[in-house]
């Protein structure tokens, strides 16, 4: 018993330390890598002189890796908006790209959510468009779960309506504001849903005419099937594109 006690404690300490190190995942800074090395630096801040070449010259915003003015024979390029001097990245995130409906039983709707977050610090506005590559489909048989038309049979990819009945089938979504008020119209009532547009068509699910940071919306996906729906694995891909204003 005594012989096992010491190695037991050592292993426990090693496991605890490993888990703690793994949970510290955010290392901020510039990372460059290739097959031979990885460099991680707190901030890339060193520049010296202005690079020039036979066809172009670059001007740097001090301390950053972006530039705002390029010129050469017969052209000039302004990068960014002339009313914004600093470099502000246009940023878009989806917190979960895998929406797992699990086992779908007839007349038992399943809902799942994910979060969209936008920061458009330099653009006076943006939109996030949504489309699906096709309906939820079994690739092997081609069986599909159709887009929902809601309880009334009237909702579309642009017009919302109530969907509360367990006997209304299909696949749809809704948008709820978490911060800001950027969700598309038509979702003021929590029972309202729209169907998804199929590519190449797309509809805006979030938009704003203002500068903003960390504007967040929650997308709720809902799927319900009839007892006659063929069995299989139903899958599709949703394409979210964040586009700044010009």
């Amino acid at each position: 018993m005594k012989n096992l006690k010491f190695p037991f404690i050592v292993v426990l300490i090693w496991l605890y330390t490993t888990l703690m190190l793994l949970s510290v995942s955010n290392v901020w800074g510039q990372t460059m890598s290739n097959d031979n090395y990885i460099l991680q630096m707190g901030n890339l801040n060193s520049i010296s002189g202005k690079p020039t070449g036979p066809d172009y010259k670059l001007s740097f915003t001090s301390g950053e890796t972006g530039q705002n003015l390029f010129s050469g024979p017969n052209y000039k390029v302004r990068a960014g908006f002339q009313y914004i001097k600093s470099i502000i990245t246009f940023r878009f995130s989806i917190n979960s790209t895998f929406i797992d409906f699990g086992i779908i039983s007839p007349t038992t709707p399943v809902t799942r959510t994910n979060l969209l977050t936008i920061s458009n610090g330099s653009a006076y506005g943006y939109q996030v468009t949504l489309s699906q590559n096709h309906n939820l489909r079994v690739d092997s048989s081609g069986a599909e779960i159709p887009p929902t038309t809601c309880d009334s049979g009237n909702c579309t990819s642009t017009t919302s309506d109530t969907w509360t009945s367990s006997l209304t089938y299909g696949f749809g979504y809704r948008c709820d504001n978490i911060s800001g008020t950027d969700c598309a119209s038509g979702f003021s009532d929590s029972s309202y849903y729209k169907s998804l547009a199929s590519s190449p068509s797309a509809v805006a699910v979030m938009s704003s005419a203002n500068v903003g940071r960390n504007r967040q919306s929650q997308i709720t996906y809902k799927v319900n099937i009839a007892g006659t729906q063929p069995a299989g694995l139903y899958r599709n891909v949703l394409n979210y594109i964040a586009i700044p204003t010009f």
Partner: protein
Amino acid sequence: MINFKLFLGILILFLTFYLGILSSAKAQNVDIGVYPPVMQVETTPPANVKSQFTLENRGAASVTLNIQIKPFRPAQSNDGQVEILQTFQNFPDPLLANRIQIKEVGIPIKSVALAPKQKKTLDFQITVPQNEAKGDYYFTVLFVSNPETSIQSNSTLASAGIAMNVLMSVGPKGKTEGFISAFNSPFFVDKGPVHFNLQVSNTGENFFAPNGTIEIENALGKKSGTVKITPVNILAESQRVIPDTDFNKSFLLGPYKATVNLQIGDGESFSRSIYFFAFPASYAITILIVIGVITLILLRVKRNIE
């Protein structure tokens, strides 16, 4: 013997927890950024246009972004939003898209891989031949992630894409032409800020960004404030509502005159004036109530004294 079983059990528990952390990566997030969100190019053929932009992966997992180029036109909302088009047939030269290249370390690429927290600077290049058709070209460069496809479950996969808009004028540029299509505000305001609705039309062949100010004067002709016009891009043959045109002064009293002085590119200057009236009714009501209460108190005190 018992202690060994206990040790083994705890070890299995830790390993299960450890593997649970790893498996959560399946529900991965995507967090991408691009700078700049817009590029404005002016060129006269022939030219080999070169610039740079940065793509950033702020997520905890690697991401591969496919590169697509799509034309756009301004959305009918006139607020700078884009409407993506599916073909280049409306371009002065539909084949220009074939001469747009994104390069990484000098090599043309169709996709770019980013490690977690990695930022890459890429080259943006357009070859403009001598005989390129004159006019404006508006397109967006999309960077779209590939969702994982090996999932064995009823599921939806989300791909995330981010766009960089490009406005290009192939010259020589035509004359900059436009006008103020709308300039108004509420006629009566209680207090500031006062919102001015300013819309500018571009009737020329090339995009421009207007410059100017809105000057506000009071009844005595004295300047009360200035609102700088944000030089947003207005595309050819379109109009745009200018954002951020609020006069941020909270206390206002009397008649005011607001004059917009606008210059478009190197072209003409425009000017238009409107009038509005301000009366702080809410302040006045509050003051009247206070005076009324004080008067009542004084009358009561006087009556008591008598």
